[in-house]
């Protein structure tokens, strides 16, 4: 009787093709590789105090003070208001031109200066990470893309501007860090070379913006400084 059970047993043989050849991991619909952030930014406000440079400004001062304020709706999305305030005056090339160093005199100071750049941006924070600077110092970092619209202000006029940029922030604690922005800025503005600003052209006084032809400028800006989180 007992033997009958074993007599009914059968050996099942599977071919190698029917066997599983690889292991699989479950695919989650909403994966989260970082569960706990050391520096969360959701619902927080960031204030940036920075030095700003217009790297491709040919004739006028290219340094100034930059302020930025960012509100982060989530860890990924935020809005930013950025302002770069320039000190005015001529650059080294502008001074050289004014003194006749480029084959003849030309005085760019007779055209309006760019005084400020103010833009509102959408911020998308794609990357959040950490790096170890030493055994005891861990720095968190985030990398964001920016796109925005705004205005540039000359001494007597404003023009439309747009920008694309990248911002990298290094956080030393939950409340502060340092920030580096590189932005490509495009804007309309008066072209100082559209008038002969010299005694040859009979122009010796400062001219208003509407006396010049408008042209499109493409400039690279860099801002670096402190960021404080509230």
């Amino acid at each position, binding site marked *: 009787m007992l033997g009958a059970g074993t007599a009914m047993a059968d050996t099942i043989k599977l071919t190698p093709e029917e066997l599983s050849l690889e292991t699989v991991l479950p695919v989650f619909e909403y994966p989260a590789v970082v569960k706990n952030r050391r520096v969360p930014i959701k619902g927080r406000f960031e204030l940036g105090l920075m030095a700003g440079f217009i790297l491709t400004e040919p004739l006028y001062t290219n340094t100034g003070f930059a302020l930025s304020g960012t509100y982060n709706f989530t860890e990924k999305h935020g809005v930013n208001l950025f302002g770069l305030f320039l000190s005015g005056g001529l650059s080294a090339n502008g001074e050289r031109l004014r003194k*006749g160093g480029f084959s003849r005199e030309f005085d760019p100071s007779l055209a309006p200066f760019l005084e400020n750049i103010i833009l509102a941006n959408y911020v998308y924070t794609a990357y959040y990470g950490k790096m170890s600077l030493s055994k005891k110092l861990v720095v968190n970092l985030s990398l964001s893309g920016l796109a925005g619209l705004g205005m540039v202000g000359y001494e007597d006029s404003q023009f439309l501007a747009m920008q694309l940029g990248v911002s990298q922030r290094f956080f030393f604690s939950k409340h502060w860090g340092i920030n580096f922005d590189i932005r490509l800025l495009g804007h309309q503005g008066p072209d100082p070379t559209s008038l002969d600003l010299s005694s040859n052209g009979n122009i010796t006084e400062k001219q208003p913006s509407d006396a010049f032809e408008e042209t499109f400028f493409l400039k690279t800006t860099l801002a670096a400084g402190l960021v404080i989180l509230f």
Partner: protein
Amino acid sequence: MKSFFQILIFALSMSLISSMSLAQDNPESVYDDFELELEPINEPQKKSVKKKKRVAKRRQAKRGKVNSLKLDPYKDIVTLQRKYLPKTERFELYGSFTYGLNNAFYNNIGAHISAGYYFTEKLGIEASYEFLLDSEREITKGLEKIDIDTRSLVIPESYYGVALKWAPIYGKLAWLNEQILHFDFYIAPSIGMTQTAIGGSELTYGFSMGQNFAISQSLAVRWDLRVGLYTAEVEELTANSNTPVRSSSPTEDVLFSVGLSYFLPEAKYR
């Protein structure tokens, strides 16, 4: 009398034979005796050496120092095991697009290629070549329209040089909170030559920084920012003279490149 001497000789010979046989059984016994004889002379020295060692050990323990000789097998400690993209004893081939960030009068767009070798995870060397295509910006066209000579503006055309790369920082980033990307950050002082549009070849001191974001164990996306400093020879006309005059112009090029790095051969893990 005769028998006494016979017995004495017999006893002596027997003792001699027995000692010899003992020596044969234990050849070391001869040496033991020798050592026993010397012991009273050596013992004080050995004790003093042992005492010195004990004192030294206690002093070291107090200082909290560890005798590194005892840790020889553990000298090679790796704090980060099995890096995703190890670089030790591997070559890196890098190709990228380059854009000049700080030339106010010309657009500089070009390509950059380099080949490097890493001796360790942190240290390597790299040879680079870069060529740039220049086009005038609107401001330059405007100056030429009003007969202002722009020959004195420096136009870089190509660069070649070598750099020493130091990558002290390694980290991880979460991409959209869905995937982990590994990266390292390097700085690289360099020396090379920049060729300018008027045919000059200028000694250039440079400094670069950049990041490698690992895509696989052999491929990475890399960005690089290089600042090159040199004194370029230029020709310029002034308002007072129609003859071009040669002069020197200190110049700084800031070039940003983004591209791909390929590492070979296959990685070796520690």
